[in-house]
């Protein structure tokens, strides 16, 4: 069990903080949600003007800074990048649209499950299905190619930008947008949110916890390591919700959720495929970006832009359900991601250059 300790502790803290941050003022069943909080940050920066979802969430800023500081101390900051960067950006946009149709990332999915929201169960089935499809492409030789080492300075740009955002927040910059009503207006005290983010960032950097990775590794290798984190988070949040009275069993009238099962399923299927092809869930992408992976930094910006698209073009779901544009985006997104996955797999039916070496290598299989 010792080798699983970091992952279990990280999952436990994530579940605990998820419950506590809700009790301290964050939106219901959204103590922590990487997708929702990136969507709120996208709004705070004015990328979209959906008035109820604008806040520069300190949890995300703390998460990045915590992971960066611990990586710096342990000499693990390493600037790398150049692995199909734009494809990653695009996949992140699709992943975010899927998550905003479901209304949550894998972290919030667990928090919703732990609060008795059965709609999240369909999201979980969708996520597992999406990860299974992504894993199948990986076993077919899907790759976005290797990263190259970059000059050190490139790895520091992302954490410094996040630090700048923290200053904007601390000094309540007039550049920022803040919701007066809706989920964006609900938040725990700034320093508590920031502190929680810092702790989660440090732990997630040490443990490499990935919510999608647990399901992926179990499907591909029967490896339960990361799954222990996922399950610990679920167990801790469940107990926490029962103790604090946040548990409500059923499909109807769940907070910041809709009961359209098909789209809960398909939204998470889309994001499950995308994040498996990207190599990790939004939490993992944030941590890797903090450690100097510039592709992951671009992926995070893909999430921010995806959230902006989702709200600017009326695709994001709400408690009322999933708008037609959101349904269309998920279907088109699924088709597009399957094409991208097929054409980046070595066993694809069309010619493609070899992954390493760059010479054109016709695939005869």
């Amino acid at each position, binding site marked *: 069990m010792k080798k699983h300790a970091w992952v279990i502790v990280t999952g436990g803290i994530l579940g605990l903080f998820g419950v506590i941050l809700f009790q301290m003022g964050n939106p219901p069943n959204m103590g922590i949600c990487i997708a929702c909080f990136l969507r709120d940050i996208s709004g705070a920066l004015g990328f979209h003007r959906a008035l109820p979802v604008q806040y520069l969430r300190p949890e995300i800023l703390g998460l990045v800074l915590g992971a960066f500081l611990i990586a710096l101390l342990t000499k693990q900051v390493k600037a790398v990048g150049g692995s199909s960067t734009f494809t990653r950006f695009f996949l992140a946009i699709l992943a975010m649209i899927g998550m905003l149709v479901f209304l949550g990332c894998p972290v919030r999915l667990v928090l919703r499950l732990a609060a008795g929201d059965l709609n999240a169960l369909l999201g979980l089935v969708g996520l597992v299905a999406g990860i299974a499809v992504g894993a199948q492409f990986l076993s077919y030789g899907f790759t976005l*190619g*290797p990263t190259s080492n970059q000059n050190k300075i490139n790895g520091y740009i992302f954490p410094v930008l996040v630090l700048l955002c923290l200053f904007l927040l601390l000094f309540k910059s007039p550049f920022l947008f803040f919701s007066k009503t809706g989920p964006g207006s609900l938040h725990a005290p700034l320093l508590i949110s920031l502190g929680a983010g810092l702790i989660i960032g440090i732990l997630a950097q040490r443990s*490499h916890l990935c919510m999608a990775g647990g399901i992926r590794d179990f499907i591909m290798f029967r490896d339960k390591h990361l799954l222990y984190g996922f399950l610990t988070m679920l167990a801790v949040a469940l107990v926490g919700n029962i103790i604090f009275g946040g548990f409500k069993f059923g499909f109807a009238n769940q907070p910041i959720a809709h009961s359209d099962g098909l789209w809960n399923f398909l939204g998470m299927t889309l994001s499950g495929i995308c994040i498996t092809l990207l190599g990790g869930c939004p939490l993992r992408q944030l941590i890797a970006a903090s450690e100097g992976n510039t592709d992951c930094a671009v992926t995070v910006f893909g999430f921010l832009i995806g959230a902006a698209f989702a709200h600017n073009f009326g695709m994001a779901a709400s408690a009322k359900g999933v708008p037609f544009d959101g349904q269309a985006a998920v279907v088109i997104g699924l088709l597009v991601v399957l094409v991208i996955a097929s054409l980046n797999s070595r066993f694809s039916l069309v010619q493609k250059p070899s992954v390493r070496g760059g010479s054109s290598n016709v695939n005869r299989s």
Partner: protein
Amino acid sequence: MSIEVDARGLSCPEPVLMTMRQLNAVPSGIIKVLVSNAAAEENVSRLAENKGWKVKAEKDGEDTILILTK
């Protein structure tokens, strides 16, 4: 005979997948796996140890060479 798996620059699960193909192909011997990030190092080591291989890690500049023996 030693087999080399170059998983530098790749993120998980690709290094694990590449290593597993080799572990499944040979019953024993020496396999060198080159990785360039901590997550890949940890995951490949865990896979090899679970399959009964001994793992030794050596630093090679910014990368790590994992020497798997059985």
